[in-house]
């Protein structure tokens, strides 16, 4: 079974530029998550999708971050404009259902450096 795919693996941009990350979850997984992991910290949920609907985006900085999952499969996370504090690893995860005890499967992440 193929895992969660993410691209690019690394991205370096200057502040105020825009950037987009792509995620393809495990086939058949209805729930998709984006997490932000700042160096030295645990991941923090940015947004959760159930199929193509948003379940939780309470921690997403909506003035600069946006995410979509138009067909309920792959997803894109965008930052525009980027700030220095956005430097982090962006992790995508998926699970078969959205319940609180379900295992989430994580992709390798995209490491973003904002200069």
């Amino acid at each position, binding site marked *: 079974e193929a895992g969660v795919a993410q691209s690019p693996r690394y991205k370096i941009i200057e502040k105020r530029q825009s950037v987009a990350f792509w995620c393809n979850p495990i086939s058949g997984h209805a729930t998709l998550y984006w997490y932000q992991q700042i160096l030295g910290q645990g991941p923090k949920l940015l947004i959760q999708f159930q199929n193509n609907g948003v379940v939780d985006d309470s921690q997403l900085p909506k003035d600069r971050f946006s995410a979509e999952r138009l067909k309920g499969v792959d997803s894109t996370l965008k930052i525009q404009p980027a700030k220095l504090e956005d430097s982090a690893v962006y992790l995508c995860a998926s699970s078969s259902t959205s319940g609180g005890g379900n295992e989430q499967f994580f992709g390798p*992440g995209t490491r973003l450096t904002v200069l």
Partner: protein
Amino acid sequence: AQSVTQLDSHVSVSEGTPVLLRCNYSSSYSPSLFWYVQHPNKGLQLLLKYTSAATLVKGINGFEAEFKKSETSFHLTKPSAHMSDAAEYFCVVPGSSNTGKLIFGQGTTLQVKP
């Protein structure tokens, strides 16, 4: 509100000696609890999961954890460390009972010395 506290940011052991990574949790209801491991440049992987079926949970690679409600703890142990165990370990609790949101601890870096 749900939260977890990992009591050690860094643990160093010698190969072949026991491993103990400590985690305390706070929950307004009886939670599921997880331990995830993150190797350098790799994705997070589930080590083990507690779901109230048994208080002693066995996971992959010889790790296990014991849920102690009276102490609100879920410490991770392994009898004998291997060099390949060197990684970042996260104690995790669901943010709610009906969504998938996970609350991660700050992480514990495990160093294994030859």
